[in-house]
């Protein structure tokens, strides 16, 4: 990754994803608390939540932002722990792959639930 991007660009993304994600997490938590925490977890309520398009967009955005931020953070820690070309490439591409898989897996839930395919 860092052969394509300078480390400072990656860090700007790291900071930005964090800031925006915090905003979305606050919305996410507020929505749950306002419904009453245990009620908000009832199956029908959750499905209704997903069917509201703006909320589904919030969820999807959060999924992408936190995945990018989280796996980049993991990459940073892992690259510090050990060095070497093969290891560093494995960590970099491994984190990138994990990030994409998690986003894909989460998106599947969001898209299917919001389209009523449950």
């Amino acid at each position: 990754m860092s052969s394509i991007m300078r480390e400072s660009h990656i860090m700007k993304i790291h900071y930005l994803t964090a800031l925006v994600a915090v905003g979305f997490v606050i919305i996410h938590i507020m929505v749950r608390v306002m419904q009453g925490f245990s009620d908000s977890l009832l199956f029908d309520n959750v499905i209704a939540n997903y069917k509201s398009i703006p909320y589904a967009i919030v969820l999807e955005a959060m999924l992408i932002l936190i995945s990018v931020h989280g796996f980049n953070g993991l990459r940073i820690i892992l690259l510090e722990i050990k060095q070497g070309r093969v290891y560093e490439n494995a960590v970099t591409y491994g984190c990138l792959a994990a990030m994409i898989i998690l986003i894909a897996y989460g998106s599947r839930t969001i898209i299917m639930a919001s389209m009523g395919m449950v």
Partner: protein
Amino acid sequence: MEKDRKEGIKGMANPGRYGIERVAYWLMRITGLGLLVYFIGHIYETSSLLDGKAAWNSMLELTQTTEGHIFLALVIGMCVFHTGNGIRLMIAEAGFGFGKARRPDYPYTPSSLNMKNKLCIYVSIGLAALAMMYGLGVMYDV
């Protein structure tokens, strides 16, 4: 023949010895990793929605236990600390809040380890504790 005296992961992960800033560094790492684990778990947990009501309810049963609540409270704490300390770091790493560089005089108090930063760390820890208590309150309908 020379022998490298690299402190290793044990040295990196030892929060003692160098003051509250090093503790904050350690907490930032731990909470970050903890939150990533929770995040992955949370996405897996919510995916049970797609398998219908029964699957969702049995997943809920798994998480709506005392241990589950304690874990969630910890997640809330980790999230609040990681956010609070993260904002401090973003401001500091942009180069703000240190005052001007100046000719140092003995006994050399480093301005990067200033009270503003220390206060932010303590406030982040305090807020995390409060948020955990509030979270437990909400989970147990107090």
